[in-house]
């Protein structure tokens, strides 16, 4: 790269480091279970939209905080079987199936 370009970009570098690479690597390393978490988030979201429910009312039904429901809906929570069972119960869906 020519010197002027390099100098300009380096003089205008952000003062705090980016978290992109760290997050991207985390997404890749946890891809398999994240896919389930995202799908569960989507199932819950579909249910909430269909029934016109708020995060607060879901939290009340699940017996957890609204902040936790918000985290579930981000699709990045490694959910416990207990939480999955609660989501199955309130959405009347079967998420875990066994042959």
């Amino acid at each position, binding site marked *: 790269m020519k010197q002027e*370009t390099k100098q300009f970009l380096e003089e205008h570098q952000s*003062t705090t480091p980016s978290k992109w*690479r760290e997050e991207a*690597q985390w997404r890749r390393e946890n891809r398999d279970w994240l896919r389930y978490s*995202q799908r569960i*988030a989507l199932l819950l979201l579909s249910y909430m939209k269909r029934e016109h429910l708020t995060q607060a009312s879901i939290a009340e039904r699940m017996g957890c905080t609204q902040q936790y429901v918000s985290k579930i*809906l981000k*699709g990045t929570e490694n959910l416990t079987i207990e939480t999955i069972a609660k989501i199955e119960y309130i959405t009347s869906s079967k998420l875990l199936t066994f042959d």
Partner: protein
Amino acid sequence: MTFDKILNNGTLWAVRYEGDDDNALRKVFNQWNDPEWLWDFFTENMADLEAYFKITDLNQAIYDTMDDSGELECLILDISPDADLDALFRPLENYRTTEMTLGKEKARLHNRPAHASWLRLYAIKLEQGCYIITGGAIKLTHTMSERTHTLRELSKMERVRNLLLENGVIDNEGFEDYIKEV
């Protein structure tokens, strides 16, 4: 506006806009992995999804976006220092075959099964093999000027390009080309 080095060898950068706590690359990949953000986006743009991609299942569109986002993100994560970035980024205008001073470029996944990928990363080409990512979008329409969210990306590219031009990030040969353009 500041810049983040994405590759240590300085061939790939990303813009961090005023008021943002991180760069455009992190922002788009976070959006493309956020079920709520994707739900709102596809609900708002369902007509385009149906018209251009013949997809009527919103959940399927979200799953496809997340899958493609993972692929595209890994592609960038795995760029080796001696990789040819000119193979990843292509001119924004499909008809453009000549080099353009601080050209507007795009990166996307190719050979995706079932339907073409609608994810785009946008960048400005600094010189051969060197790029600055300005943003990204879910492009569902034929042209970027048809929708507000893609128009916004065009405007971001223009802003970054102008800043670079104003600050002389251009060599003599490039400057001559630029004068010809204007």
